[in-house]
C-alpha cells in the first residue's frame, strides 16, 4: 500500500467508521470497486472490536496493577507500597519500598489530592525538580521523584524519615529550654541553606519537622507547597491558597492576604510560630474553638501574647525579655519588619544561648500607635526576600527559554547580582535594628544598579528591567511600569528582532500598563502585536497565546468603540477555545474564560447570544463548584451571573432559586455588608418584580440600598440605581403591579 492509497482509505474510513449502515452503503456504492471492497473489509473489522494479544495483556495487567495502587502491596512504577504512614494536609502518606541494586530502599509517597489538573502539576514538577534535587543537606529530606497513577492522580516520592514531629518529640523526651533552642538553631540552618538555593519552604510546621531516634532533625516537604501554588497559578490562585491551607495555625499574614507576596520572610514567620510553641508549649495562634476564617483574621491582625505570658511559671522568667523579643520579631505582621533572614534569627537565638545581648529590639510605643492607624494597609512584603522573589522569577523565565547550560549560568549571575545589592549588613549601619529598605527605594536602587552594572549584558538587563516593571505594576505604579516595559521592549527588539516571544512578553506588560493608564488605543496596538508574535512563534495552543487573546478581548469589551464588542466576542471565543485545548474543559482558568465570554455575549445580546452566555455560565459554575466547593465567592459569582442570564431569558423563577444560594454564599464568605451582596439583592428585587411579587421586590431593594449606602460612596451608580428602584416600587401600591 502506498501513501496516497492509505490516506484515501483513511479519509473514507474515519468518515464512515461511526456512520449508519445506509450511509455506508450509499458511500461505498459511489467509490471505485477495489477501494470500496478494501474499505468494507476494514470497516467490518472495526465493527467487531477485538484486542491484539499484546493489548489484551496490558488491559489485564492494568486492571490488577496500578488501578488499585494505594493498597498495601500495590505498585506505583518501581515502588511497592507497604503501609500508610498517616494523613497529611494534601492527602495520605505511604511508606513504600523499591529495589535498588539488591537492597530495599524505603521511601515516603505522598498522595496529592487537589482539584488541580495533574498534567499541570506534573509539568510544574518537571520544572521544579531540578531546583529541588539540588537541595542536599543532612537535615533536609530529599524529594526523589514524582508521577501519576493510572487514574491520573499525582504523587511525589520523598526520602523516608523515621521520627516524631519535633514538638511531640521535645515533650516526650522532656527536653530542656537550651536543648530545644539548639534543635531550633539546627532547623534554621537547614532553612537558610534552602534559601541560599532559592527555595522557600512555605509550609513549615511541626509535622514537617521530624526528630529521628538519633536526635537529628529532618525537614520534610521542601518546595511542595510552592509546587501546588504554582500549578494553581491563575486568576484564582490567591483565593485558593487561603482556602486550602491545611494548617493555618502556621501560615503567615502574607499567605492569607490577597496582595501578599510569599518570600523567605514567610519562612521566618513560620519559624517564629514554631519557636513560640517550642519554648512556651502552646501555639501562637490556635485553631482551637475558632473557625478558619477567624483564625485567618487573628493571624492578620492579632498580636500573640509574649511567650513568657503563656508559658508554665517555672519557664516564664527565662523567656521574659530577650526570648520574647526574638519570637515576636520573627512573628511580626509586616514581612519587612521581621528578621531579614533566617540566619539572623538563628544568630539571635545563639546569642541568647551564650548569654550575649541580642540584636532585635522590642517594638516602640510610637510604632505601635502608627501601626494601629495603618493596620489595614499591609505593606508589600520586601526585604531580602525580594531578592529571592526576583531571582526566582529570573531563574524561571530563563529556564523556560534557554538551554541547560545557559540556565545555570544565568541563574548564578542573577543570584550573585541580587545578593550584591543586599550586601550591606542592616545591623552594621547603626539604624534601628529591623528597619528595612522601603519598597520604593528598593526598586529605585535596584533599577539604577541594573542599569549601571549590567551595561554590557543587554539581555539580562532587559529581563531584569522588565521584572522591575512587573513589580511596579503589581504595586499600582503604572507609569513607572510602562516606562520600564517600554525600555525593555526597545532593548529586546534590538537584540532579538521584532518577531520573538520575549518581545511579545514585554509588549504584553506594556499593554497592561497602557490599558490601566487609559491609553486604550496604544494598549490595543501592543496586545495585537504580542498576539501576532505568540501565534506565529508559540502556536495557537500555547498558554501565552491564550493570555494574549484574553487580554485583547478584555480591552475591546471595555473600550466599546464601533465594532469592538463584536470583535471582543470573536477574540474571546478563540481565547476560550485556546483555554479548553490548553487546560481541558475542567479547569479553573477555563471557567474564568467561560465567564468572561458570557459577560461579553450578555452585553452584546445579538440573536442567540443569551443562550450561549447562559450555557457558558452554567458550565463555569459546575467547574468552580467541583474545584472550589460550595462556599467560595467565585461559585457565588458564577451563580449570580447565571441568574442574570436566566432573568433576561424570562426564567424569573430559576433566577430566584439561584440568587437564594448566591446571596447566602456571598454573605457567608464576603460578609453581609459587602457591596456584592447588595448587587444580589438588586437582582432579586428585579426577579420578584417580574414574578409579580412587588412587596418582595421592595423588601429586596431596600435591603440592597441599605447595604450599598453603608459600603459605597454616595455617588456610586449602584446606590443611585437602588434608590431609584426603591422610589419606583414605593410609588405604586402593593398588588397594583403587572399581572403575574
Amino acid at each position, binding site marked *: 500500500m502506498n501513501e496516497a492509497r492509505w490516506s484515501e482509505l483513511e479519509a473514507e474510513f474515519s468518515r464512515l467508521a461511526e456512520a449508519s449502515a445506509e450511509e455506508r452503503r450509499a458511500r461505498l456504492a459511489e467509490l471505485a470497486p477495489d477501494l470500496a471492497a478494501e474499505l468494507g473489509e*476494514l*470497516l467490518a473489522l*472495526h465493527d467487531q472490536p477485538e484486542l*491484539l494479544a499484546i493489548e489484551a495483556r*496490558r488491559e489485564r495487567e492494568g486492571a490488577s496493577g496500578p488501578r488499585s495502587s494505594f493498597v498495601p502491596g500495590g505498585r506505583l*512504577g518501581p515502588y511497592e507500597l507497604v503501609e500508610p504512614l498517616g494523613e497529611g494536609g494534601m492527602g495520605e502518606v505511604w511508606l513504600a519500598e523499591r529495589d535498588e541494586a539488591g537492597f530495599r530502599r524505603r521511601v515516603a509517597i505522598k498522595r496529592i489530592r487537589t482539584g488541580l489538573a495533574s498534567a499541570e502539576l506534573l509539568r510544574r514538577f518537571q520544572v521544579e525538580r531540578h531546583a529541588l534535587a539540588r537541595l542536599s543537606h543532612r537535615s533536609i529530606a530529599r524529594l526523589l*521523584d514524582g508521577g501519576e497513577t493510572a487514574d491520573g492522580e499525582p504523587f511525589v516520592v520523598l526520602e523516608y524519615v523515621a521520627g516524631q514531629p519535633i514538638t511531640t518529640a521535645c515533650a516526650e523526651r522532656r527536653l530542656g529550654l537550651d536543648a530545644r533552642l539548639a534543635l531550633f538553631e539546627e532547623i534554621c540552618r537547614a532553612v537558610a541553606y534552602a534559601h541560599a538555593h532559592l527555595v522557600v519552604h512555605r509550609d513549615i510546621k511541626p509535622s514537617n519537622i521530624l526528630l529521628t531516634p538519633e536526635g537529628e532533625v529532618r525537614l520534610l516537604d521542601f518546595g511542595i507547597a510552592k509546587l501546588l501554588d504554582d500549578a494553581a497559578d491563575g486568576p484564582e490562585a490567591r483565593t485558593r491558597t487561603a482556602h486550602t491551607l491545611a494548617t493555618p495555625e502556621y501560615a503567615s499574614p502574607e499567605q492569607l492576604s490577597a496582595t501578599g507576596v510569599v518570600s523567605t520572610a514567610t519562612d521566618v514567620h513560620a519559624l517564629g510560630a514554631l519557636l513560640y510553641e517550642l519554648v512556651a508549649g502552646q501555639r501562637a495562634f490556635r485553631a482551637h474553638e475558632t473557625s478558619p476564617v477567624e483564625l485567618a483574621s487573628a493571624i492578620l491582625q492579632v498580636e500573640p501574647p509574649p511567650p513568657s505570658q503563656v508559658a508554665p511559671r517555672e519557664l516564664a522568667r527565662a523567656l521574659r525579655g530577650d526570648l520574647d523579643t526574638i519570637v515576636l520579631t520573627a512573628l511580626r505582621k509586616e514581612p519587612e519588619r521581621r528578621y531579614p533572614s533566617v540566619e539572623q534569627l538563628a544568630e539571635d537565638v545563639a546569642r541568647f544561648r551564650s548569654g550575649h545581648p541580642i540584636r532585635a529590639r522590642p517594638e516602640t510605643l510610637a510604632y505601635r500607635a502608627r501601626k494601629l492607624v495603618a493596620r489595614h494597609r499591609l505593606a508589600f512584603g520586601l526585604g531580602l526576600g525580594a531578592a529571592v522573589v526576583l531571582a526566582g522569577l529570573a531563574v524561571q523565565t530563563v529556564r523556560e527559554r534557554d538551554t*541547560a547550560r545557559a540556565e545555570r549560568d544565568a541563574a548564578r549571575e542573577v543570584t550573585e547580582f541580587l545578593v550584591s545589592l543586599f550586601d550591606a549588613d542592616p545591623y552594621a549601619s547603626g539604624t534601628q535594628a529591623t528597619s528595612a529598605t522601603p519598597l520604593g527605594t528598593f526598586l529605585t536602587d535596584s533599577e539604577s544598579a541594573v542599569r549601571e552594572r549590567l551595561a554590557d549584558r543587554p539581555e539580562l538587563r532587559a529581563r531584569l528591567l522588565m521584572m522591575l516593571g512587573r513589580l511596579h505594576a503589581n504595586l499600582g505604579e503604572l507609569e513607572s511600569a510602562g516606562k520600564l516595559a517600554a525600555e525593555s521592549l526597545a532593548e529586546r527588539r534590538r537584540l532579538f528582532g521584532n518577531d520573538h516571544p520575549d518581545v511579545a512578553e514585554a509588549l504584553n506588560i506594556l499593554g497592561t500598563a497602557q490599558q490601566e493608564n487609559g491609553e486604550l488605543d496604544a494598549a490595543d496596538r501592543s496586545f495585537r502585536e504580542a498576539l501576532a508574535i505568540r501565534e506565529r512563534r508559540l502556536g495557537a495552543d500555547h498558554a501565552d497565546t491564550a493570555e494574549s487573546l484574553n487580554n485583547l478581548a478584555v480591552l475591546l469589551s471595555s473600550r466599546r468603540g464601533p465594532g469592538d464588542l463584536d470583535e471582543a466576542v470573536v477574540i474571546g471565543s478563540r481565547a476560550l477555545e485556546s483555554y479548553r485545548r490548553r487546560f481541558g474543559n475542567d479547569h479553573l482558568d477555563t471557567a474564568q474564560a467561560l465567564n468572561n465570554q458570557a459577560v461579553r455575549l450578555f452585553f452584546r445580546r445579538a440573536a442567540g447570544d443569551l443562550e450561549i452566555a447562559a450555557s457558558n455560565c452554567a458550565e463555569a459554575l459546575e467547574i468552580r463548584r467541583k474545584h472550589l466547593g460550595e462556599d467560595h465567592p467565585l461559585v457565588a459569582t458564577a451563580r449570580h451571573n447565571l441568574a442574570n442570564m436566566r432573568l433576561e431569558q424570562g426564567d424569573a423563577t430559576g433566577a430566584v432559586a439561584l440568587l437564594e444560594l448566591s446571596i447566602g454564599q456571598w454573605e457567608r464568605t464576603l460578609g453581609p455588608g459587602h457591596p456584592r451582596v447588595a448587587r444580589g439583592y438588586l437582582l432579586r428585587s428585579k426577579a420578584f418584580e417580574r414574578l409579580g411579587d412587588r412587596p418582595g421586590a421592595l423588601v429586596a431593594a431596600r435591603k440592597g440600598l441599605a447595604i450599598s449606602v453603608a459600603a459605597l460612596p454616595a455617588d456610586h451608580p449602584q446606590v443611585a440605581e437602588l434608590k431609584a428602584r426603591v422610589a419606583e416600587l414605593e410609588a405604586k401600591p402593593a398588588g397594583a403591579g403587572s399581572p403575574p
Partner: protein
Amino acid sequence: MSGEVTRWLGRLRAGDGEALGHLVPMLYDELRALAGHLLAGERAGHTLTPTALVHEAYLRLLGERRIGVDDRGDFFAVAATAMRRILVDSARRRRSAKRGGDAQRLPLEAVDSWLTDDEAEELIAIDELLGSLEAASPRARQVVELRLFVGLGHEETAALLGVHEKTVRRDWQMAHAWLRRELGRGGDRPA
C-alpha cells in the same frame, strides 16, 4: 550516561541521522536491564508494563536534569523503537528455543518468560508488518509503536507527536483494523 543521552537527543533533533543508531542501543540496554531486574524478584502480583519501564528508564537516564518537551518527545519515540526491539527479540528467542536445534539459538532471559507463545508470535508478525505501515503512513506507524510498545494513551501520543488527539484516534482505528486484517491473512503469506 545521562549527558550522553541528552547530547544524542540534541543531535537527533538537529537532523543527525547517526544519532538514532546510538540512542536505540543505549535505551535497549537500559530498558532490558530494568525489565530483567524487575522480573528477577518473581514476587507475587508482579507486573511488567512497558509504560512503567519506559518511564523508569526516562527518570534514570534523564530524570536528574530538566529536559525540554522536545527531548521528551524524542526520547519516547526512540524508547518505543527500543521497546519494540526488546519485545520482538524476546519473542524470537522464545520461538527458537521452542523449535530447538537452531544454531542461532539464544539463551533465554528473565524477560522472555514474560510473553506467552501467542503473544510472541503476534509480536513477530506485527514487527514484520510495521515496514509496510511505514511506507503507507509514517505517522500511523509511530502511533502504533507508541501505543502498542510503550502503552501510551491517545492523549499522550498526540502530545508527543505534536498532532491533535483526533488525528491519533483516526490513525489508530484504521491501523488497528488494518493490522488485524493483515494478521488474519498471516497464513496465506509466505513465511
